[in-house]
Structures are given as structure tokens and as C-alpha cells.
């Protein structure tokens, strides 16, 4: 199916009243999670997953996708107005966005963030539309052997791309794999690491893990801090002037390109793409000293980058069935619940899902522009709600959500456990994202590894003799060796 007729079909899915509502709800909740500090898209998507059980698969993904890219829009609002990132991908927006607000230019900052997000989002959807189908056709030839190599590459990249310490990311990935191993062995049906607990026989559930790591732990972290105070001046001139546009034009385009490519890479999430975009803008700028003092480029670039990432992250999920970040892992779970297998066949077997989601993204970006510019006042007022109301409802939602997935009280326990773990991890600067991704990719890796070894009769050389597999294995080792190579070359240069 060519992209144009596919898109037309997609719009017939996305523009039904039902799905328009789901898309709107997703964007609305996404903006909300973006605006509210200490509550990111990971937790929001996990909280809403139980709800999507009652929707068709296409509607479910439309809504969850809306939350993800909606959060990228909303995140900038809090960064600019209160100097607290509404969600992690907007950390760098604080640097210049808040300075602009202090100089009385909160309006243009919010405006360029929203317009940049819109432009980046829209360009990325076009990219998604044209890149995904050929990639899926190419991936049709992949066997479990290729998947093993791709996931191996993904797991190494995951640690390398982390925003903090690489060693710590590596350790968390190891913990994630360990958590993923818990349960019944898929081939010989033996219990692994269940310690005699019956509830661990089915493994550790994704939703309790994500809710604990992203929801409960954030609440606990915020409880330990003092409540923030909000200073909001009058916001005027939401439309950036001609000069602002001139300064932001290229940062938006560069941010889009950077964000788009980082979204495709495993472990390359919106946080990193926004940081990289900020770094690039600072480097190419003729006046790097203006950064941190209210440079509009420092808002336009990163905000575009995180939106582009939120869209392109769907490419590996919808074509290979491999999630590249925690939110995509939950979307994968949502598809599995509906018995839709994400992979190369998804586009041909479930065109309504693939094209419906793409079309809904176009719609969603327009909705978000409307939600974020004229209605900005509503979100600002939301920030004044005392935190106690917010965290009480988040905790209750988590408790109910964890229970509803399997009607198991033990899932609540797993969630609280991972809540405490996540709290301690963040206290000691360990990122939860590598843990979640490794926990998802681990079993996927094991499954494919055992299948391909079964076919090859236990022969490990298959991974090196098949060309595509070899390329990914080599990439994986290259990534692992990169820190050493760069250190050696630095030492050589010094001499």
C-alpha cells in the first residue's frame, strides 16, 4: 500500500468520533502529565493501560501515543514558568526558557516551544510514514537470529546512550535482565528465581514495575522535597516575533533531525535528544555566551527534538516489535493485551492500527497546538493545585491500576517494591529507564536466542555467518569498545 492511500485509510480510522475523542483525551492527559512536575509520560501511560482494555487496539494506541507526544508539549510550560521540568525531556528548556520568562518574554518562549513542537512533530510523522513501511518490508526477512543481534545491539546502545553514568546504566540494565528472567522458563517450564512464591511464576508484571519505578518513586521523591512555590507573571505575546522566528528557524530543523534519529535508536529517548540538541545549538551559535541567559534557540531546538523523538520512537516498535524506551514498552504491552503482535507484519496485517495511529498523530499535533497556546492559562492554574491532592490521586490510581491488570494483590506489592527501589535508585543517581528496557528486551532476547539455537542445532556461529546479524553484532561490540577507543585516542593525541 502506498503511503498516500494508507494515510487516507488511516484518516478514516482516526477521524471517527470515537477515535477523535480518544486522541483528544490522550493529548489532554499528555499535556497534563507534561505540565505537572514529578509525573512523567511513563507513569501516565502505565496508569491508563488498564483503561485501554476496553478500547479497540487502534483506539488504545492512538490514546497512548497522544499521551506521549502530548507530554512533550506540556513539559516546556513548567520549565519556562517555574524553572522545574514538567517532565524529564524538558530539563534543558529550563536553562533558557526560565531566563526568558524572568526577562518578561515567557510568551514568546512558550510560543516557540509549542510551534517548534508542532513543526517537529509533523515532520517526524511524515518521516515515520515513509520510513516505516520499507523498513518493515526489509525486516520481513529477519529470522530470530537477526533479532538476537538487533536486541544485543540495542542493549549495548541502551547503556551507552544513558544521560548519566554509563557504568550505572550498565548495572541497571543487568538488574532489568535479572527481573525479566524471573518466572517460568519458556522452554522447559522450570521455575526461575521464584523463591517459592506462586505469584512470581508468571514473571514480574510490566505495569506494576513501571508504575512503581515512574509513579510511586516520583511521589516519594517529591514528598521528601519542600513544596515549590509558583511565581507567574502575566503572559503576553504568545506569538514569537519575526526576529524570534529567524533565530529559531534552524534550531527547530536541526532539533527535528536530531530528535528523529535518536528516537529510532534503542535507549535513545527524548531526554537525550533534547540535551544533544541544546549542545549542538550552543556549539553552532555565533554567540554561545547568550545560552543560559535567555536565548530563544535554547528553547526552540530541544523542544523540537523531544517531540521528534516521541514520534520516531514508534518506528522500531511498529516495524520490528522492539521498544526503544519505557513508554514504547508499555505500548507494546498494550498491543500484546489485544493480541496484536507488533513486528514486520503489523503494517500489512493491521493497517488500521498503523495508518490510524499515524493519521491520529497529525490530528493530535493540531489539537495540542490549540491546547497549548490559547488554553495555556488553564495549565498554569493547574500548577497552583496543592501537591497533596495530586499525589493522593496518583497513588490511588497506581494502586487501582496495578490491581486491575490481573486482579492480584501481589501486583500491588510488586509495585510498592519497585516504588521503593526507584526512589532509592534516583537518590543515588541511577536511571530507571535502562532497567525497564532491559527488563523488556531481556526475555525477547532469550526467546529469540533459544529459538535460533534450536534451529541451528546449538551452533553459535549462525550469528556471525548471516550478514545482517553480523553487522549488528559488530555495531554492538563497537559501541561497547567506543569508550576505550576514545580514551586511547585521547591519550595518543596528548603525546
Amino acid at each position, binding site marked *: 500500500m502506498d503511503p498516500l492511500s494508507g494515510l487516507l485509510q488511516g484518516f478514516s480510522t482516526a477521524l471517527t468520533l470515537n477515535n477523535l475523542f480518544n486522541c483528544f483525551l490522550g493529548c489532554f492527559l499528555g499535556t497534563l502529565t507534561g505540565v505537572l512536575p514529578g509525573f512523567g509520560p511513563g507513569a501516565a501511560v502505565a496508569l491508563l493501560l488498564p*483503561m485501554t482494555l476496553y478500547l479497540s487496539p487502534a483506539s488504545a494506541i492512538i490514546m497512548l501515543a497522544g499521551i506521549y507526544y502530548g507530554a512533550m508539549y506540556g513539559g516546556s510550560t513548567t520549565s519556562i514558568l517555574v524553572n522545574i521540568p514538567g517532565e524529564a525531556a524538558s530539563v534543558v528548556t529550563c536553562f533558557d526558557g526560565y531566563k526568558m520568562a524572568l526577562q518578561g518574554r515567557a510568551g514568546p518562549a512558550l510560543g516557540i516551544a509549542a510551534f517548534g513542537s508542532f513543526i517537529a512533530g509533523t515532520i517526524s510523522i511524515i518521516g515515520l510514514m515513509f520510513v516505516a513501511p520499507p523498513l518493515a518490508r526489509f525486516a520481513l526477512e529477519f529470522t530470530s537470529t537477526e533479532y538476537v543481534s538487533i536486541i544485543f545491539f540495542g542493549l549495548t546502545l541502551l547503556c551507552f546512550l544513558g544521560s548519566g553514568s554509563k557504568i550505572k546504566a550498565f548495572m541497571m540494565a543487568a538488574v532489568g535482565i535479572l527481573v525479566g528472567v524471573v518466572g517460568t522458563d519458556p522452554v522447559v517450564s522450570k521455575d526461575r528465581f521464584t523463591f517459592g512464591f506462586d505469584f512470581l511464576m508468571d514473571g514480574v508484571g510490566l505495569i506494576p514495575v513501571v508504575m512503581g519505578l515512574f509513579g510511586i518513586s516520583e511521589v516519594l521523591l517529591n514528598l521528601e522535597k519542600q513544596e515549590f512555590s509558583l511565581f507567574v507573571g502575566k503572559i503576553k505575546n504568545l506569538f514569537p516575533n519575526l526576529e524570534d522566528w529567524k533565530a529559531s528557524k534552524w534550531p527547530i530543523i536541526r532539533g527535528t533531525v536530531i530528535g528523529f534519529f535518536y528516537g529510532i535508536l534503542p535507549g535513545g529517548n527524548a531526554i537525550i535528544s533534547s540535551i544533544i540538541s541544546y549542545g549542538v545549538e550552543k556549539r553552532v551559535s555565533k554567540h554561545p555566551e547568550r545560552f543560559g541567559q535567555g536565548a530563544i534557540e535554547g528553547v526552540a531546538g530541544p523542544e523540537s527534538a523531544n517531540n521528534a523523538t516521541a514520534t520516531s520512537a514508534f518506528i522500531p516498535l511498529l516495524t520490528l516489535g522492539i521498544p526503544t524506551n519505557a513508554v514504547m514498552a508499555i505500548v507494546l504491552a498494550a498491543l500484546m493485551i489485544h493480541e496484536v503482535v507488533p513486528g514486520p507484519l503489523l503494517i500489512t496485517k493491521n493497517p488500521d492500527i498503523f495508518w490510524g495511529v499515524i493519521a491520529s498523530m497529525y490530528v493530535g499535533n493540531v489539537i495540542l497546538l490549540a491546547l497549548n497556546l490559547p488554553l495555556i492559562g488553564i495549565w498554569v492554574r493547574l500548577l497552583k493545585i*496543592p501537591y497533596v491532592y495530586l*499525589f*493522593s490521586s496518583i497513588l*490511588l490510581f497506581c*494502586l487501582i491500576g496495578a*490491581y486491575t491488570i490481573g486482579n492480584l*494483590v501481589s501486583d*500491588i506489592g510488586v509495585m510498592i517494591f519497585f516504588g521503593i527501589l526507584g526512589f532509592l535508585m534516583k537518590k543515588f543517581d541511577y536511571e530507571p529507564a535502562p532497567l525497564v528496557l532491559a527488563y523488556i528486551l531481556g526475555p525477547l532476547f532469550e526467546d529469540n536466542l533459544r529459538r535460533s539455537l534450536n534451529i541451528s542445532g546449538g551452533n553459535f556461529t549462525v550469528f556471525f555467518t548471516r550478514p545482517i546479524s553480523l553487522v549488528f553484532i559488530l555495531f554492538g561490540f563497537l559501541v561497547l569498545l567506543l569508550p576505550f577507543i576514545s580514551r586511547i585516542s585521547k591519550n595518543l593525541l596528548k603525546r
Partner: protein
Amino acid sequence: MKGSWRTVLSVLASLFLYMAFFKQLGFILLTFLFIFFLLRFIGKKGWVISISLALVISFFSYGLFSLLLGTPLPKGQLYGSAFRASARV
């Protein structure tokens, strides 16, 4: 609201108690107690506000999840034994 280690620990304790008594006390009563505790003792809201909001939230969430979305939330043994008694008659 003052943030401290003690706040974190008491919220954690309330989560554990929620889990421990989930089946026994039933969703509505337990949620009422949970929200009331958070609002009154963590959020330091007034008694009237805490009680009335906890009532509204517990019934509303029960209505939303159990009645509207059909999630089987536990009714609790208090209700259960009353039902069983009435069924026997």
C-alpha cells in the same frame, strides 16, 4: 506540607497497609481511610475537607472502576458476611 523522611515513610506505610487490608476491608472503606489519612495527616488539610473529599473520592472511584469499567474490586469481608447472612435467610 513539610517534606521529610518521616513523610516518605508514613506514605510508604499507608501503601503497605492498603495492600495488606485490600481484601479484608473492601475497596470503598479502605480507599476512604487511605485518602483521609493522606489529606489530613500528610497534607494537613482540615477535618471536614479531608472527610468529605475522601468520601467523594472513594465512592467516585468505585463507581468509575467497578460499575462503569467492570473491574472486580473487592467488596470486603464485612459486606461479604452480611450478604451471606442475608442470602441464608
